[in-house]
């Protein structure tokens, strides 16, 4: 059986590393803490929990400490860590899985902005099938995102004909909503 064949079945009762392995087919315990992931991570200077720290906390079964781990939420998903990992650990995929596990937890103090962005983004996709950028900007900025200078630059964006003012709805919107619901149901059932 290839490494991609995995059961997908996991539960909160299992050690975190086992859970991650069931979700991703990857063994986080292969990590030997060389730090090459963090050495290449573009966000390493801005975070305190870097990719190799995440891997370490997974190995030590410290889900609570990962809840507020900044590196998890500031990850750019650039996959530099994954492409250079000597052990094929795929920290990027591991962090995806952790975000998925932690999405249910709402007690995270930090990085609500990032979560709010993801939420706004997916709401746009769910409602329209495509990203309505203007809608995203509005909903995100109003929904708790930091009010940066972006609002002032938006007119210049509009002037260049870059932003549509009305959303485009895809025809298969029903299907998109069904996908969202089915995925939510699957995740709950897992």
């Amino acid at each position, binding site marked *: 059986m290839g490494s991609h064949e995995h059961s997908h079945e996991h539960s909160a009762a299992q050690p975190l590393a086992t859970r991650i392995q069931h979700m991703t087919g990857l063994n986080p315990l292969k990590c*030997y*803490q*060389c*730090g*090459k*992931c*963090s*050495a*290449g*991570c573009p966000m*390493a*200077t801005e975070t*305190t929990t*870097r990719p*190799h*720290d995440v891997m370490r906390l997974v190995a030590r079964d410290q889900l609570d400490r990962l809840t507020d781990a900044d590196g998890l939420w500031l990850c750019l998903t650039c996959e*530099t860590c994954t492409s*250079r*990992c*000597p*052990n*094929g650990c795929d920290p990027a995929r591991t962090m995806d899985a952790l975000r998925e596990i932690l999405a249910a937890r709402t007690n995270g103090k930090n990085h609500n902005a990032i979560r709010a962005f993801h939420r706004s983004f997916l709401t746009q996709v769910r409602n329209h099938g495509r990203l309505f950028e203007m809608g995203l900007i509005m909903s995100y900025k109003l929904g708790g995102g930091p009010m940066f200078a972006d609002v002032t630059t938006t007119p210049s964006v509009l002037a260049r004909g870059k932003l549509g003012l009305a959303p485009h709805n895809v025809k298969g919107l029903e299907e998109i909503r069904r996908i969202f619901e089915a995925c939510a149901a699957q995740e709950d059932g897992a």
Partner: protein
Amino acid sequence: MARIGVFVCHCGENIGRTVDCAKVAELCGQVPGVVHSVDYKYMCSDPGQQMVKAAIAEKGLTGVVVAACSPHMHEKTFRRATAGGGLNPFLCEMANVREHCSWIHEDRDAATVKAVDITKTIVEKVKRNVPLSTIRIPVTRRALVIGGGIAGIQAALDIADGGREVILVEKDPSIGGHMSQLSETFPTLDCSQCILTPRMVEVYQHPRIKLYSYSEVESVEGYIGNFKVKIRRKARSIDEDKCNGCGACTKTCPNKKIPSEFDCGLGKRTAIYVPFPQAVPNLPTIDRAKCLLFMNRAKGRPDTCKKCAEACSKEAIDFDQVDRFVTEDVGAIVVATGYQLYTIGKDQAKPNIKGYGEYGYGTIPDVIDGLQFERLASASGPTSGKIQRPSDGKEPKRIVFLQCIGSRDPQKGMDYCSKICCMYVAKHTMLYHHKVHDGQATVFYMDIRAAGKGYDEFSRRAIEEEGARYIRGRVSKMWRDGDVIKIQGFDTLAGEPIEMDADMVVLATAMRPQPGIDSLAQKLSVSYDQHGFINEAHPKLRPVETNTAGVYVAGACQAPRDIPDAVAMASATASKVLGLFANEMLEREPTVARVDESSCAGCFHCERVCAYGAVEHKEIKDRAGNVLRVIAYVNPGVCQGCGTCQATCPSKSVELAGFTDEQIWSEIQALGV
């Protein structure tokens, strides 16, 4: 009619607790052909063995079954006892009622039934056992050593000093191997050349060592005690008998810009060259790929340059020399072909091995490997021991060493530790600090593996007293910016990213087996792992033997090894070889296959499946000498007894002694309802 004796062992409580041994003895005693069946507390004890011996004499037994532990435990014991009782030892077999029965079951009734089944099965087998005698084969008491590095040199000297002749084959123009390239050796910092050169000379002068340098093993036939080895003596274009090693030829050669292999490309050599001053033999070799005369010949042009021949007063240069072949008979072979260093380039010899794109695939100048650093640090090296970087000859003030390059990196194809790098990097930082007083050496490492006498003390000294800065973490990326090398790493102990500039970077690259090791291993029928390292016969108990009898392994062709390891292994192979040569004849277990000549159809399926080349073609002739049939013959000296030939033979004309079809048929029959 068979007269079998059954001896059921209680093994103290080990068997008796879950198996009713008396019942087993009683029921087995009812099996036709069993004339004696008893149980006893400890069959392997002296009284137990005496019972076997006595019963053989008193009951006239024709076979012995001991129902006790695994045959892997005590088969030899009871076969010896059987022989002591005057019966052929191969008429004794063991029924495994301990490991395979009493120890794995709790239900006493079920275990007893099973123990009876197991014993009856072996009784039926033993009824069909026949007396066998150990096989005796003559031994040619000369050894072949392949590879003239430190391991091969040591093995050759030890065997020769032990009084046996040795053929030493080295593919390069000189013996000495990688050790001759090293500057100083850890952990004592003694000069490598100084300790190696005398041994090289000793090899050359030893009356019982025949050295074939610039030669390779072409083919190997035969088996333990009786190998026939064909050796290709590559044309070095020099008459070895005439040359006196004066060196006049190398001085006149006009092609002086060839990167020297010995100096790892950092120095230059001529087309006719002696690889290094202490070379053994001290004979020049013409590199035909680089010699003007041969380059012209390859293009069909007339010879122009003959400067070396003109300079030679002994007329020793022979441009028309061709490869020659010699055949040597030997009884044992030591493989000591050593290692090569992994390089980080994009093109790799094997598809599973990858280069380091993140370190520039080897295109950044002033990024060198450990062996190149040895040459820079060596007093006899291209810079006379000055640390200078290759690009501009400047002395690097900031030098960075990266450990585990390729090693412990499964994604690059090598998951193993190369073992020696931690130590030589520590040594390199010391050599560097000794030579560049205002310089700073930094080491990126993952773990410091310094297990060995004086090793940890040595690596600590590099840090505590000699000023090397060790940073725990792998480097993510490395690139050239102007004339500095930018390094993007991470200090996992301090928990912070590091970007630093270096003037020179030294990579501790992985040790890999020599290229061509797989074809040599195939010639020798020895197995090798996925990396190409030769497999030892047993990782604990037979570390220098291979799975082909008579072929031994020493040094870094088996796994990454440092010098003391390689030397110890070499001496161990010598002791194995000398042990083998202690007798004129060799004794082997008789578990070998034999062909039924009357029914063999000569299809040679057996030959195709034999991993040892034990199947030969035998001609059956009439009285006039006409060949009637060609059939298979299994050479008992070569056969290892796997029986694959027998299962493959369509007419069942091969029988493996000890595991004949009749024996197995009877065992299956005995298990019937």
